[in-house]
């Protein structure tokens, strides 16, 4: 205690000096837009740099899992090509007009910031306007739904995670095509709730849930998850709990999907609303 007091007495000038400079620095950083921006930029640069380093290391450590998921995705893609080619040849003459036929464009990106423990979760990806990403594009983790882009800068984008209580998605039962509205109840990062499925529909545990494509954001048929539990809740509707296909805890490489014909669809729909 005594040595502390002597220390204070000895360096009181320096301490007062530092305190006053601290106050001045605080005023400087909060009171002036320019200085505020400079300080915030410097801190952001530091944080982003660090995050990038951490992500790089983690990418390397996860390579095995990533390879596995890529392989699985390859298989799925090959299957769908197979299906498409067969359909093409069965009835009509095929016309290869790529501009006319292609509706969705894909881009891969890396998640550099993610959270799952809030009520409104967002994640950041390392691509932005310069790489062709735009607001309202869909994000999947290659197989399952992950979120929707809500903001872009030149090189980064923020996506609203599916684990966000504001997130809404039109989804359906793959087995019989009945669709409902899907959202997250804010509790478990592996579960979501599908509502508005009428009670006369046959539902069983393990049924696959996929997207409908009605919103013009997500393409049709992307897997959301499987039914893990359902109960009759008053009214006429089921409350179906879904275990999500996407593991948000290790979300890493994502597939951003843009709908090239979205404006066309929305404009048409607007005419009749």
């Amino acid at each position, binding site marked *: 205690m005594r040595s502390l007091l002597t220390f204070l007495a000895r360096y*009181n*000038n320096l301490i*007062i*000096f530092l305190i*006053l*400079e601290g*106050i*001045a*620095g*605080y*005023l*400087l*950083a*909060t*009171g*002036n837009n*320019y*200085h505020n921006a*400079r300080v915030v930029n410097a801190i952001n640069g530091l944080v982003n740099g660090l995050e990038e380093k951490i992500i790089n290391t983690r990418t390397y450590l996860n390579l095995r899992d990533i390879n596995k998921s890529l392989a699985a995705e390859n298989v799925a893609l090959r299957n769908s090509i197979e299906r498409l080619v067969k359909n093409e040849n069965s009835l009509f003459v095929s016309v290869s007009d790529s501009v006319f036929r292609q509706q969705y464009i894909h881009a891969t990106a890396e998640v550099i910031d993610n959270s799952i423990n809030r009520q409104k979760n967002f994640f950041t990806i390392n691509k932005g306007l310069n790489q062709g990403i735009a607001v309202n594009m869909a994000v999947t983790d290659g197989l399952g739904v992950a979120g929707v882009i809500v903001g872009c800068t030149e090189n980064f984008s923020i996506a609203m995670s599916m684990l966000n209580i504001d997130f809404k998605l039109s989804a359906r039962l793959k087995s019989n095509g009945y669709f409902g509205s899907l959202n997250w109840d804010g509790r478990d990062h592996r579960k979501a709730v599908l509502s508005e499925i009428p009670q006369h529909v046959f539902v069983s545990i393990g049924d696959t849930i996929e997207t409908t494509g009605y919103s013009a954001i997500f393409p049709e048929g992307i897997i959301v998850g499987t039914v893990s539990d359902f109960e009759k809740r008053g009214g006429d509707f089921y409350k179906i709990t879904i275990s999500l296909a996407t593991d948000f805890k290790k979300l890493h490489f994502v597939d951003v999907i843009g709908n090239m014909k979205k404006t066309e669809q929305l404009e048409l729909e607007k005419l009749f609303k």
Partner: protein
Amino acid sequence: MINSVFRFGLIFILLILAQILLFNNIQFSGYINPYIYLLFILLLPFEIPSWLLLLLSFLTGLIVDFFSGSPGMHSSATVLAGFVRPYVLRVMSPRDGYETGAEPSMASYGFNWFLTYALFIVFIHHTALFFIEVLRFTDFFRTVLRIILSSIFSITFILLIEFYRKGKK
């Protein structure tokens, strides 16, 4: 004691008013802003406790900040000036030390002494001020040029005021 508090209060008010009303409006070609309010920090007596010196410096800067709409900028520079002042004075002390009751003015210690003293403090203050203002090192030499030119003008005006004060005595 009370007398000197009153006197420095008057000097303080006059300098701040001159700074805000007159010198803040002088901007030769974007490079030169004389800051004469520093004279107040220069003139405070030798025996002033350093905590009081720091506080007064901060207060001076804060008031100038408020009136020039740049919170924190002048305060951090003046606090630095107040912090280095005792060291500068120690380096420049005459062989037999400073007389008790004297103040660091041109009238007491002469033109050369005061010029060197003011040069030190003004240059340190202006360096801090202009670098804090831009907060980056690009255009380094432009900033240095602004520091040098503004220092020259500040010192000129400070010397003029000191000459006037000396003449009146």
